[in-house]
């Protein structure tokens, strides 16, 4: 039992290390993952500025922009990752190794969280410097709680999606595209999801980024409370539930999908 745990912790850290090294070695993320998203975020800030909206709206947008980094990481570096691992020939080696595939997925998540946090914090930092966004620092402990829960549930969802994407071929690419743009709208990255109405916002809450962002905004921008979808406490409770469901489901799905993949030979087919 302990031997097995150590094996899986080692596998997890080993996979996370790939991302740590990648971040250090491949510096393209600075222009592509920090500066370009900041340009997109700036557009919304200038729109709000031209409409003479209060500066808290800038904070609103900057927080949304940093959360987009996590969502993109989930889609392209978690959900589609096993598909890419199969294309490069790594996947069969993951499966014939004695460690659980979940430990590799968690390693990807840990590495992804680290790499994306560097990017997200860079966006927030540049937002503070360039746009002097107001932040209510007293709400930081609550914000950290909301943020951590959001990450756990978000990456739980990512692990779940990666199993599903594994069964797809080239469609994995289209699925990621499909989940990218609409989520920009439904997760309220640039506006409060409350505006979407109760039912649409409820459905959007299945994406942890939606509620996570809403609760983050409530903690760091007290003036945003009237625009909040649900109370902070309820959102935190839902995020806890989503975390448990997504992580549990990802464990179940990986097992099932490995079985299907072994039966149908999908672990070995490439470039289909």
């Amino acid at each position: 039992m302990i031997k097995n745990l150590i094996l899986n912790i080692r596998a997890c850290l080993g996979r996370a290390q790939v991302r740590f090294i990648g971040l250090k070695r491949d510096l393209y993320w600075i222009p592509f993952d920090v500066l370009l998203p900041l340009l997109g975020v700036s557009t919304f800030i200038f729109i709000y500025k031209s409409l003479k909206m209060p500066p808290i709206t800038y904070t609103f947008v900057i927080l949304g922009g940093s959360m987009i980094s996590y969502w993109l990481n989930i889609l392209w570096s978690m959900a589609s990752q096993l598909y890419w691992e199969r294309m490069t020939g790594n996947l069969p080696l993951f499966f014939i190794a004695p460690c659980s595939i979940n430990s590799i997925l968690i390693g990807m998540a840990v590495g992804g969280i680290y790499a994306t946090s560097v990017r997200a914090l860079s966006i927030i930092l540049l937002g503070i410097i360039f746009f002097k966004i107001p932040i209510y620092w007293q709400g930081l402990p609550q914000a950290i709680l909301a943020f951590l829960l959001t990450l756990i549930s978000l990456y739980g969802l990512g692990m779940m999606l990666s199993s599903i994407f594994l069964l797809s071929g080239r469609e994995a690419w289209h699925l990621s595209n499909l989940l990218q743009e609409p989520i920009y709208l439904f997760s309220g990255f640039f506006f409060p999801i409350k505006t979407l109405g109760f039912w649409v916002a409820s459905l959007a809450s299945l994406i942890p980024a939606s509620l996570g962002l809403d609760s983050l905004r409530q903690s760091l921008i007290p003036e945003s409370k009237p625009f909040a979808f649900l109370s902070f406490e309820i959102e935190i409770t839902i995020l806890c539930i989503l975390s448990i469901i997504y992580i549990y489901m990802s464990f179940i799905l990986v097992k099932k999908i490995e079985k299907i993949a072994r039966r149908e030979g999908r672990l070995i087919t490439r470039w289909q």
Partner: protein
Amino acid sequence: MLVIETINLSRIFINKKTKKRIEALKNVSLQIQGGQIFGILGRNGAGKTTLIRILTTLLLPTSGSAYVLGYNVENEYYKIRPYINLVSGGENPGYGVLNIKENLFFFSQLYGIPRKLAKEKINKYIKEFGLEERAYNLVNTLSTGEKQRMQLIRGLLNDPEILFLDEPTVGLDVESSRFIRQFIKKWIEETGKSIILTTHYLAEAEELCNLIAIIDSGRILALDTPSRLKAMGSKEILYEIETTPLSLEFLKNIRGVSIIQDKYLDGKVSFKISLENESLISNVINKISELGSNIIYLRKKETSLEDAFINIVGRSIEDD
């Protein structure tokens, strides 16, 4: 010790679009003892890789059963995985953003090898495989031969009881192929572990394997040592002879001898003859002496593994 056993193992793939059934393996029954290199020889698409995939727990059989180290591949796969490893030719797993050492360390962690031990093993193998100077180079800058050496190191990191090598020298230059073959032989001698090797290179199979299974269209057609398989080749007894000038007319008078080929060059005669039985060669030699000619060269032509393969499968290993 029996390391692998398959009983009536079959695997069918169904093309979802055309609904066409492809029987990749048909009732394969094998028993493989440990401590040897067991070769699976066949043409492309013969079923070699499918068999390896089932034995390495990547694929489930459609019917029949397979046991690796006594464990069933279907439901005891997790007991098999710590004791096996797989190296496939023509594939380059790993991460381009990492160097050789980092890649190997990553793969060692999938087997839970303690950090210090993993690094010691990696350093030892990197030295043994002549990759010291490239150890800190990113994998995507390596040559094909260097990549394959790295893959072989990866396959050895967990000290597997059974190492599966799927066409390990495919696409490699002569020097890299030779290095890998020599290493394989040395590893087996030193460790007494087992290697299951699939190849479509006859010379490689003949050089390395203690036993060879010839597979075609998903069936095992023959299983024996390379020398016994060669004996299954052509039944003809062939001799190549070179003499001083001589008319070959006399051969027509010896019953059971036929000329296959003759050449007259630089005052010498080279000819190839087929004999119905081995004893006829003494008649031929005596007659040459009687006719006052000297034998410069005489060699019995051995049947090659290729001859045996053609005889068993009905076509050459390279035919499409």
